[in-house]
């Protein structure tokens, strides 16, 4: 009985701590970095930190002068009560840095946000995820890689972290939310803003098996400067960052930089040397990022994930092409119909157009189209982009 009472007291207490931090940051406009500085100085004692700022207990060494801690950039007035209302309406909650449920890995980074705005319960249980990031303008290949890696990771229970943007981020989230590991999206805007708008569906779905987090106060628009800050959270929450496709100047590379700063693993997925979309990842690999061609490459690198070993990988020493991706590729199907067989043989893993298939198979176009539709219906091949087909 006593325990339960204590628990409730604690809960109440922690809730009020979050609210007090909210007041400090957005009503008194203490800059978050100053807050964290004082917090660390006080060996992570949240109460004394808050007391220092509110001036309840005067610190012996320093006399509190609020002007020293004012944040420089936020000139905007915040209405705390309306923010609280938004948080209640949106079914979201706050996590402060002193809470147990605040992601442990995030506490370790140089400048963790004192307050996280969250939605969905995944964030409370995350031990360490893998970030899958990349360009917003991906190729079909990038899309497949992002979806494949995320799905496989999520299947064995690893949470996939990404930035809720379009492109690679979108495909990573989308593939991960349907498996056990779930997904966490880190926003560069307020929790009540869906950006980009076409991710609305994803935004609703991700909450069911994952969460959305942001350090920005509700109502913050997706400003350009928010995104590098968001990237530091993406890598901060994760044990490693997989860069799927990134051109030479890409936000994904900023995430990779943060990952190095925060002592996280960096992985790069190789692409074609001719694709501008893969130049950034190749650059990373050249500088020492680990080349990823199956998820075992990721799992082997991070010792905490030993428990998560994928079933296909029998021993670490075996060459990694024994993994599921390669196995699937070697599988050949035989058909009774010679025409269908011919077309199946022609369609490989590089996209081929209908015209090419028709010329190579020497079949007329209507036969080719009929077999292609049949193979598509049987989920053996798929259309990559305009009129180009590959095996699944």
């Amino acid at each position, binding site marked *: 009985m006593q325990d339960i009472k204590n628990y409730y007291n604690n809960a109440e207490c922690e809730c009020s701590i979050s609210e007090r931090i909210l007041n400090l940051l957005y009503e008194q406009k203490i800059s978050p970095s100053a807050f964290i500085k004082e917090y660390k100085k006080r060996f992570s004692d949240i109460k004394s930190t808050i007391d220092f700022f509110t001036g309840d207990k005067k610190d012996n060494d320093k006399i509190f002068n609020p002007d020293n801690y004012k944040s420089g950039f936020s000139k905007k007035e915040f209405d705390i009560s309306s923010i609280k209302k938004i948080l209640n309406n949106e079914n979201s909650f706050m996590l402060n840095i002193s809470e147990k449920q605040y992601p442990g890995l995030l506490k370790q980074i140089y400048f963790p946000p004192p307050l996280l705005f969250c939605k969905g319960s995944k964030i409370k249980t995350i031990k360490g995820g893998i970030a899958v990031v990349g360009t*917003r*303008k991906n*190729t079909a290949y990038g899309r497949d890689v992002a979806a494949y890696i995320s799905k496989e990771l999520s299947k064995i229970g690893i949470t996939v972290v990404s930035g809720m943007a*379009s*492109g690679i981020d*979108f495909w990573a989230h989308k593939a991960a939310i349907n498996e056990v590991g779930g997904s966490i999206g880190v926003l560069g805007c307020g929790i009540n803003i869906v950006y*980009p*708008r*076409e991710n609305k569906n994803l935004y609703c779905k991700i909450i069911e098996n994952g969460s959305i987090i942001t350090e920005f106060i509700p109502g913050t628009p997706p400003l350009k400067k928010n995104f590098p800050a968001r990237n530091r959270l993406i890598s901060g929450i994760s044990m490693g960052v997989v860069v799927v496709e990134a051109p030479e100047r890409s936000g994904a590379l900023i995430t990779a930089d943060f990952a190095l700063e925060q002592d996280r693993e960096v992985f790069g997925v190789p692409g074609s040397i001719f694709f*501008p*979309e893969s130049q950034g990842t190749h650059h990373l690999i050249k500088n020492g990022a680990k080349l990823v061609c199956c998820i075992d490459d990721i799992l082997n690198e991070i010792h905490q994930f030993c428990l998560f070993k994928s079933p296909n990988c029998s021993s670490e020493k075996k060459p990694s092409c024994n993994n599921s991706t390669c196995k699937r590729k070697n599988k050949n199907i035989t058909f009774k119909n010679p025409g269908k067989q011919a077309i199946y043989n022609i369609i490989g893993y590089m*996209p081929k*157009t*209908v*015209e*090419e298939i*028709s010329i190579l198979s020497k079949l007329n*176009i*209507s*036969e080719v*189209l*009929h*077999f*292609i*539709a*049949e193979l*598509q*219906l049987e989920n053996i091949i798929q*259309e990559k*982009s*305009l*009129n*180009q087909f590959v095996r699944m």
Partner: protein
Amino acid sequence: MFFKLSSFALIAVEAIEVYVEVHISAGLPSLTIVGLPDKAVNESRQRVRAAIKNSGFIFPLKKIIINLSPADIRKEGAIYDLPIAVAILAASEQVDLKTVEVIENSSFIGELSLDGQLRPVKGIISMAEESLKTGRKYFFMPAGNIAQACLVKKSGNAGCISLREVLSKAADEKIITRQSRDIESLKSCSNKKNESDYLLDFSEVKGQLKAKRAVEIAAAGMHHIMMVGPPGTGKSMIAQRLVTIMPDLTTSESLEVTKIYCLTREFDGILIKKRPFRNPHHTISRVSLTGGGISPKPGEISLAHRGVLFLDEFNQFPKNLIEDLRQPLENKNIIISRNNLHYKFPCSFMLIIAANPCNCGYNGDKKRTCRCSTAEISRYWNSISGPIMDRIDMKVEVPSLDDRDIISTAEAETSSIIRQRVINCHKIQAKRYKNFSFMYNSEAGIKYINSWISAETEIKNLLLKIIQKYKLSGRAVSGLLKITRTIADLENCNNIKTSHLLEALNYRTGQIAGY
């Protein structure tokens, strides 16, 4: 003194009979026209007065009232000069009794110049048809119109150079019959000349096997089709060659088409036998697309009747303009209401649309990368009307050519070979639908479509699989089956087979449908 003779007024493409009544009475000399004449009709007072005098007749210096009845229909254009002039001459007893009898049994149309010469008028075919229907013995018209009028199988069309010739022909009926016989023989000569071949040919289109096949199917079943692809891959080229693989118009169809064209200025008086191909630019106004104006004129959709309407750069067309196409696509005609009249123009056309896959044009291209963001692409596709997309049965991608294809000199199938297959397919459909109000697979109703697959369990099972995989709607399924039927007809099969259905699937699903 009273006299009445017959003439015509045009309402949309149809002509109705109008009576020109003249009453000459004593009083101050004047000439009044009543019966809702427009400015051009009213001005005919001056032309008629001068023409009568310059033709050597006497203009009666009396009070003249002319009524164009029925009086509640607006009369337009300078076409009533001739009937008014003839009526005045008859009423003032300047022609003999025998001629008056001929005049009473005839219809007149024509614009007069001041010296009494006759100028050609518009819409003569509908008038000739109406004159045949009303049972008038002769139809007097300007000589410039006679070739068009003779497209309607009727003797008694009399083309005249001047007002004088009208009266001399009315006096001697033999000249009329002799002349129309001459014209018949002249017409058969000119028709042979009309059958010259097209300048374009399908063999000029390189690669694009799938798109070409799709267009062939579309032409065979008159399915609306949309082509999506990056710039410069041959979308417009294919569309322009579409008419070369379509069968010529049948006699009744060509008369329908010619009737519409003879309302426009571009008509040269020869029976149109080839299917029209209309390619309006996207800056076209609403009225010139659908038809309209104070006195409604046919728009591009009516000029494409029985032929092809090609909308290039489809997304550039203003949205409200595209929405206007909804009802005409469904009803095969457009009704324009002005004052208390409804003008009905036929517009049974095959729609062919070309568009880029995104703003920069290279979305999904294998050679160049697209510069558009996902939001831009979805905005781009959202700007294209859903209901219109829904009515388009076939969607086909026209991707960029293979490097080898661009320089290849291999000859592809010529238009005439493809046209032969399309003609066969049209014949099969004409036979199948001879008891129905529609002519092509694309127009078949849902009840009829179901009868195609009711007996085939194999097809039904496959169809179920397809619906489950691609999550097709009811309309999409019937569209799919219509294409399937056309593919089967192209192969001369009575029953549709699974291979036909699977091929048809290629034109429904795919990348574009996903956006």
